[in-house]
């Protein structure tokens, strides 16, 4: 069974159709990238998947369960963790507190109003492990707001990882990074994905990044899917070249 399945998903804002009858799947273990030119509906699709906005039509299924009407935090509880296009952290907390708070969200006793030392210990353990996987252990005690741009990006990924997600959703993971920082981030993420065990859906417009990281691709154009498959096959698709890739290939 697919981990994530979209059926005929549509979002209209007044008269404007942002996402138009999109159907696609994400299989366990794959790293799928959704690409498309500006205004293709990538961000709207991402919002529909994470639950930030509600679909006009169609269904979102996660692990066979219908989650179309479920609020964002509920989907997260099922195992969907996300990162933001513009880095979203808790700037005054240390990096370690950031990942710990993220990990705590997966604890059944996350709401415990008194005591809770065991909850904290477990959350810190998972958070620290995530920091280590992304090579951030050396900045663990620094306030998140004072980290470098690249590290902040990675910290956000670490927070998602600390939740041990079944599906990791990334919204333009290299947005706003310098060329150098992008290269670094891609390297870290590449080895992370290569290590296996993660299912990832990422939205990205930087082709370099997509071809380095993705194992599958979906191409959006004006709210509709125009191609889907292996990166190389998609790259060769004339419709895609026409709509988007231009002279890239």
């Amino acid at each position, binding site marked *: 069974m697919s981990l994530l399945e979209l059926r005929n998903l549509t979002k209209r804002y007044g008269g404007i159709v942002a996402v138009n009858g999109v159907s696609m799947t994400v299989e366990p273990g794959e790293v799928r990238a959704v690409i498309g030119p500006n205004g293709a509906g990538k961000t709207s699709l991402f919002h529909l998947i*994470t639950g930030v906005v509600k679909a006009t039509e169609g269904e979102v299924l996660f692990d066979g369960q219908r989650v179309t009407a479920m*609020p*964002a*935090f*509920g989907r*997260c*509880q099922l195992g969907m*963790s*996300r990162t*933001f296009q513009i880095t*979203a*952290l*808790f*700037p*005054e*907390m240390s990096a370690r*507190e950031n990942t*710990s*708070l*993220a990990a*705590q*969200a*997966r*604890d059944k*006793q*996350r*709401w*415990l*109003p*008194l*005591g*809770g030392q065991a*909850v*904290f210990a477990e*959350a810190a353990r998972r958070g620290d492990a995530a920091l280590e996987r992304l090579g951030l252990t050396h900045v663990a005690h620094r306030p998140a707001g004072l980290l470098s741009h690249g590290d902040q990006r990675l910290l956000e990924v670490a*927070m998602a990882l600390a*939740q041990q997600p079944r599906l990791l959703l990334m919204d333009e993971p290299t947005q706003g990074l310098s060329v150098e920082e992008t290269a670094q981030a891609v390297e870290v993420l590449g080895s992370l994905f290569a290590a296996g065990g993660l299912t990832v859906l990422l939205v990205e417009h930087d082709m370099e990044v997509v071809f380095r990281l993705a194992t599958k691709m979906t191409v959006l154009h004006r709210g509709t899917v125009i191609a889907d498959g292996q990166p190389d096959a998609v790259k060769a698709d004339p419709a895609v070249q026409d709509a988007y890739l231009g002279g890239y290939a």
Partner: protein
Amino acid sequence: MRTTLAVAALLALMPLGLPPYAMTLLTEALIMGLFAMSLDLMVGYARLISFGHAAAYGLGAYTCGNILLHTDIPLPFAVLLSGLFSGTVSIGVAWVCTQATGVSFSMLTLAFAQLLYAVAFKWTDATGASDGLAGIPRRPGPFGTTFFASKIGFYYLTMACLFGGFLFARALVRSPFGAVLRGIRENEAKTLSLGYNTRLYKIAVVAASYMLGGMAGALYAPFAGFANTELLFWLLSGQVLIMVIVGGTGTLVGPILGAAFFLFVQQQLSIYTDSWALFFGVIFIGFVLFAPQGILGLARRGRPTEQHR
């Protein structure tokens, strides 16, 4: 913990040396301190800036006043019950108010408090309308003891409520629940996306805050022997917010100090001038402009930062 015990011991010794009027003032300061601390739970830990916290105080005071006037429930239980009642009512209030965020949230809380004020002004049977509830007694008990009805006994009851409330609030903000509140304070959208139902957490913290604030009001009713609509008025909401901000938000102790500070200064100034509110206003503007972290925040900034959660 050691500091808390030392302060408790010091306060416990106060009745030995202070004249009655000073004990009255000190008791009122402790009540106000509890009230300000309760607001800090919302303002300092979840950035829920309430402009209507008098609602909690007034609810507690009227509830306790009615319990003491019309039943034989002993004073300490009446105070606890009133706090619980206030906390329960607030769940509805919070459900509505947390529809909004930011300044709109503040306005909604103000509107709610004013609605209660308007109702209290006309609901003669429960509130005595503009005449208020007079002659609120301090019922004896439990177990027939009249200790809490005496001036000193009442002081100890107030002290117990303040310290109990403080320990409860401190445990709350240091718990996993408190960690989520801190997340909401710094970045609510992110906290939501991590899988926390932030609205429930906000409603819960409002309820806890109203419960403690309600207890403070519940103590005030038998303290003054009187309760009227003034306890629901927006001016009180504003004053307590001033105490919290000047004392230092997100510190629990700061607002208690802020309340005591303003009460003593007001008492001293009102001997010489009726214009003590002028002083209130100027100090407050100064703090918002130059030291938004408050007295305790200033003091802590001077020290090397400690690892605190």
